[in-house]
């Protein structure tokens, strides 16, 4: 069995992740922030471990500015719905996931203007493509760091620099990159970074959050969800303090226990090691698939400029059928279609038919990549079930 769907959710997770989740369930169990007994405090320690690890990974000094949500989508919604008010303008890119575009379209109906800066046919863009859309009322630039369709990495540092120069808030959708690509909140000029726990961070589903730069004033960003935090219990208004402001309600500590373990594992293992390994796999995939007659690889086709996400089409064959055959006949799991990113597929010229996406992970072996290439080659030569 070969799992090539890491861009959806990574699997398998390191053993320490299972162990941390089990330990929480078996030995701790309580919720953090609510009571002050030892088990509740231990739950808070676990959550703090996760904050410290994420902060360290993205180059932040203050773990209090890492707030947890249940995924990147919630973190993105928190920012877009909180920051953008009628009359404002926001700029995004032609490579976004629906996690960004759907909330923006919802806001558009409420009087918020949205511009989409175009990208090249391989998904790439220069910061200048964004600059031309800036208006006096532009409040936010939101861009994904790497595409979930074809791995193209956008120049976030340059975009961030531009945003700083114009006094515009910059939100990065880093769902595909934290843990798989270098990222540093401060050096990359990022105000707000949305991350998810279950992809390259190797944690469980239902974890994610928002990393907030030291200089970003949280008073300008209302909470998406308000409610109990365990702090300021005498007050009926949402406290403004971090992290409580954005963490109302009992959190997914079981998930955060796993995330704390997985991020610590990544830091010790070395993100650079993983990048190096995944680059090897990506190059092998791009070259191998590219050599098959009738196969077209979409995106940069350059392992230096993309994450380990390789999308392709096969002449005359439907993506969904290819994926079915890969699963049923070759035990290879991948994701076909539009990948929740119709806009990105339009940019890449693969809308509405979509692509087949192979996304290996840190534990995928080179021989496994060869098996996947062999399977696609056989399908391209002999037909779907040939």
């Amino acid at each position, binding site marked *: 069995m070969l799992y090539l769907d890491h861009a959806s959710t990574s699997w398998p997770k390191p053993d320490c992740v299972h162990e941390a989740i089990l330990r929480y369930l078996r030995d701790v169990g309580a919720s*953090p*922030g*609510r*009571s*002050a007994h030892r088990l509740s*405090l231990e739950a*808070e*320690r676990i*959550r*703090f471990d996760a*904050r*410290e690890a994420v902060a360290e990974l993205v180059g932040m*000094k*203050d*773990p*209090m500015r890492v707030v947890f949500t249940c995924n990147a989508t919630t973190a993105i919604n928190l920012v877009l719905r909180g920051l953008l008010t009628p009359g404002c303008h926001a700029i995004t890119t032609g490579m976004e996931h629906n996690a960004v575009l759907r909330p923006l379209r919802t806001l558009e109906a409420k009087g918020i203007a949205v511009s989409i800066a175009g990208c090249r046919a391989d998904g790439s863009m220069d910061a200048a493509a964004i600059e031309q859309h800036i208006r006096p009322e532009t409040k936010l630039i939101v861009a994904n760091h790497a595409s979930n369709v074809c791995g193209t990495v956008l120049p976030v540092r340059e975009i961030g620099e531009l945003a700083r120069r114009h006094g515009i808030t910059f939100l990065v959708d880093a769902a595909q990159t934290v843990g798989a690509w270098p990222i540093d909140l401060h050096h990359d000029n990022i105000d707000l970074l949305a991350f998810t726990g279950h992809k390259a961070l190797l944690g469980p589903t239902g974890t994610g959050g928002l990393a907030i730069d030291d200089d970003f004033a949280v008073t300008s960003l209302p909470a998406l969800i308000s409610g109990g*935090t*365990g*702090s*300021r*219990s*005498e007050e009926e208004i949402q*406290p403004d*303090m971090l*992290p*409580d402001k954005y963490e109302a309600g009992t959190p997914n500590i079981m998930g955060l226990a796993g995330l704390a373990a997985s991020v610590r594992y990544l830091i010790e293992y070395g993100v650079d090691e993983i990048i190096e390994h995944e680059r090897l796999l990506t190059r092998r995939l791009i070259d191998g698939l590219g050599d098959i007659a009738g196969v077209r690889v979409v995106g940069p086709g350059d392992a230096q400029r993309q994450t380990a996400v390789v999308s392709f089409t096969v002449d005359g064959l439907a993506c969904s059928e290819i994926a079915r055959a890969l699963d049923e006949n070759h035990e290879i799991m991948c994701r076909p279609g539009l990948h929740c990113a119709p806009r990105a597929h339009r940019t890449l010229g693969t809308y509405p038919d979509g692509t087949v996406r192979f996304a290996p992970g840190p534990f995928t072996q080179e021989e496994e990549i060869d098996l996947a290439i062999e399977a696609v080659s056989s399908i391209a030569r002999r037909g779907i079930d040939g």
Partner: protein
Amino acid sequence: MAEFAVILVYTTTDAIFAERVLRRADLAAKLIPTPRHLGSDCGSAVRIPASESERCEELLRTAGVSLSRIVPLNT
């Protein structure tokens, strides 16, 4: 002089942050339920040896932990 002092913080996360910073400096910091007469910002507070109050405050400020105040604990 009181034997202990308590560091009052705003959130449980601050309490854990403080505990971690102080323990890393080998200080005997212990989390306790906030004595009701001292406030209700947060259910947990950090108990420290009163003689270490100044050092603790310095360490916490350097690490960026927000604290409300440090008060002697009269038992």
